[in-house]
């Protein structure tokens, strides 16, 4: 315990020393579950490997979403508590240099109880992934993955500078679970530094996930409730080993505008979007008609082309908020802030409004109803945060700097 505390202090001191020129400095702790805790839709619990913002507690699937601003200089530190193998972070799609690419042998890996830093810039707004590239076939399946969102400088509600604007966004990351790959002998395996190869099992997933959930777990977690006239930006990503085919109602007017962190030269209007492993798509929905139904994600086997599973996402477009009200945005001030934060809402969306504040690792640090009283943020440490304001099924995201 003392050794871990010492390492944490050394790591923290190193971060303080090295981050003077950085726009964002984050730390992820890579670790394993000691007890099965990730609950599947059938009630069974499995072990995970993963990344977390805390030393204690169980892991979440996927790992925290990381958000950066376009052209930010970023230092992403990793403290590996795997209890065995080295881990890495591959910044999938960010085109970082070789040293920071997270591929063992070509870059560096971080041994158990050690720390490492990835230094990079994020020049293109868009949706990316991160995952472990050490024995990647095992570690990615084990849960070592998450989403990276790079936001443009102009506004958080733009796809990119001079791109498309939207009112709200959803990020849906697809993957699968083969529970046989989550056995303790795999998740908690001993590390043999001389082993050049690794034997893996046949891959036969039984669970097909969106943001780590499936079947009834999607209710309340992965849904799309939009209001008439709302422009929704879907960030779709696939970190599994199956193909995904998302089928949306034509009334949502789905338009593919970006892929892999780049604008598409020709946008595609189609209610069906195919996302292969490693790919990301940005899809604008123009919710201009009432709708209540589902969006479907098919999971197809890349060897046979056959659909082996479908997941249904509840989709509702309701008309109880008019488009004129969408022009009214919540106002948050001051920013940067020190002790207090005010959120002013238009009258039409004051009812049942709530706010959550997350740190840059996606960890919720504050949650409360919005009133006319200031929000006390004095206990929060200085740094960058994401403020999520929710009301009547809508969500606004703002970046907050606490000094």
């Amino acid at each position: 315990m003392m050794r871990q505390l010492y390492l944490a202090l050394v790591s923290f001191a190193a971060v303080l020393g090295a981050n003077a020129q950085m726009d964002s400095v984050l730390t992820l702790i890579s670790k394993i579950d000691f007890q099965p805790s990730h609950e599947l839709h059938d009630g069974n619990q499995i072990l995970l490997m993963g990344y977390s913002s805390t030393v204690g507690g169980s892991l979440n699937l996927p790992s925290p979403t990381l958000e950066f601003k376009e052209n930010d200089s970023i230092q992403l530190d990793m403290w590996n508590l795997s209890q065995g193998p080295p881990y890495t972070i591959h910044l999938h799609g960010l085109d970082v240099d070789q040293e920071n690419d997270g591929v063992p042998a070509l870059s560096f890996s971080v041994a158990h109880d050690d720390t490492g830093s990835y230094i990079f810039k994020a020049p293109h707004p868009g949706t990316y992934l991160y995952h472990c590239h050490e024995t990647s076939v095992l570690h990615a399946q084990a849960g070592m993955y998450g989403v990276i969102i790079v936001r443009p400088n102009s506004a958080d509600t733009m796809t990119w500078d001079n791109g498309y604007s939207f009112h709200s966004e959803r990020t849906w990351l697809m993957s699968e679970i083969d529970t046989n790959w989550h056995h303790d002998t795999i998740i908690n395996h001993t590390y043999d530094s001389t082993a050049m190869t690794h034997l893996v099992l046949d891959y036969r997933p039984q669970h097909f996930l969106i943001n780590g959930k499936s079947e009834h777990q999607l209710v309340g977690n992965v849904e799309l409730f939009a209001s008439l006239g709302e422009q929704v930006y879907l960030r779709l990503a696939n970190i599994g080993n199956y193909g995904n085919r998302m089928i949306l109602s034509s009334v949502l007017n789905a338009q593919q505008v970006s892929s892999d962190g780049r604008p598409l030269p020709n946008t595609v209007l189609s209610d069906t979007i195919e996302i292969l492993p490693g790919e990301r798509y940005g899809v604008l929905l123009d919710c201009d008609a009432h709708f209540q139904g589902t969006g479907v994600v098919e999971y197809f086997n890349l060897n046979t082309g056959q659909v082996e599973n479908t997941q249904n996402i509840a989709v509702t477009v309701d008309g109880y908020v008019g488009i004129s009200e969408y022009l009214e945005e919540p106002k948050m001030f001051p920013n940067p802030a020190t002790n207090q934060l005010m959120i002013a809402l238009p009258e039409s969306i004051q009812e049942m409004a709530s706010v959550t504040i997350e740190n840059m690792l996606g960890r919720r640090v504050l949650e409360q109803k919005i009133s006319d009283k200031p929000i006390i943020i004095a206990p929060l440490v200085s740094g960058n945060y994401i403020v999520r304001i929710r009301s009547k099924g809508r969500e606004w995201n703002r970046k907050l700097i606490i000094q």
Partner: protein
Amino acid sequence: MKALLIFVLLCPAIVNAAIVNESLYILKDSIVVSSGEKLPYLTFNASTSFTGTNARIVLSPGDVLDLWVHNMDASEHHFEIRGTTPSESILSGDSIHIIHTFLENGIHVFHDPLNYPNQASLGLGGMIVVRDHSYPSFYWNIKEHKRGQNDTVLLGGAVDWAHYSPDFFTINGKSNPYINQDSNARVTGTVGDEIYIYVTNTGQSIHPLHFHGYHVEVRASTRNPNHVGRMKDSQGIYPAEGVVLRLIPDKEGEYPVHDHNLVTTTGANVYPLGLFTTILIAP
């Protein structure tokens, strides 16, 4: 008048065009996969000597391909340039003669479509590249293989494609670490180079390739021509598809390219003996 206009428009290509004489020989032997096992295999070869890699034909726009395909195998085969020439039967010991003019830059897939995909799955599939440049170019013929299946096909048995679960994953018939020893496959260059990668998938699985370090531009796709111009770090290559990718590296380094169906980075369940190579860029 219209014919004259077409003739004038085609003149520049015709001036540089040539009649290109090529022969392909259908031969049967075997390849050694990452586990050390031998798989019975057939390929289209440039001579009467068997190689585990299908011959590649490179043309310039406007070239007339004068092609003979000789069946040196004991069984009947067919030959087709997908979307370009019809399937033609070639009996054992027989030959066919094809003449076709290729006007535009791009990539074409040729294969044996008999009892598709059974005969093609034995290895009979390659690429015709049409290009008007001399930039560094590399060629990836991607395929996967299932242990025992080629024996089944050769014996006339039924293949259960609905439960296809291949064991080996190759570029030009090779898996990691041997792909990097193939100078046609291993992408090398210097910062700022314009590099072209010609990719075919002559297998039956979809192969989503992921590029580390760089985005590549889709310059041609036989399946999705509307994807031309997209900048991608992850690009799916569908069965029987040909794709042309352009890479202009902006930094030095060695960066992996691999199938992001990570199961394919294995060979007979052993990681990392699968579809994994690296791009090497000098300053």
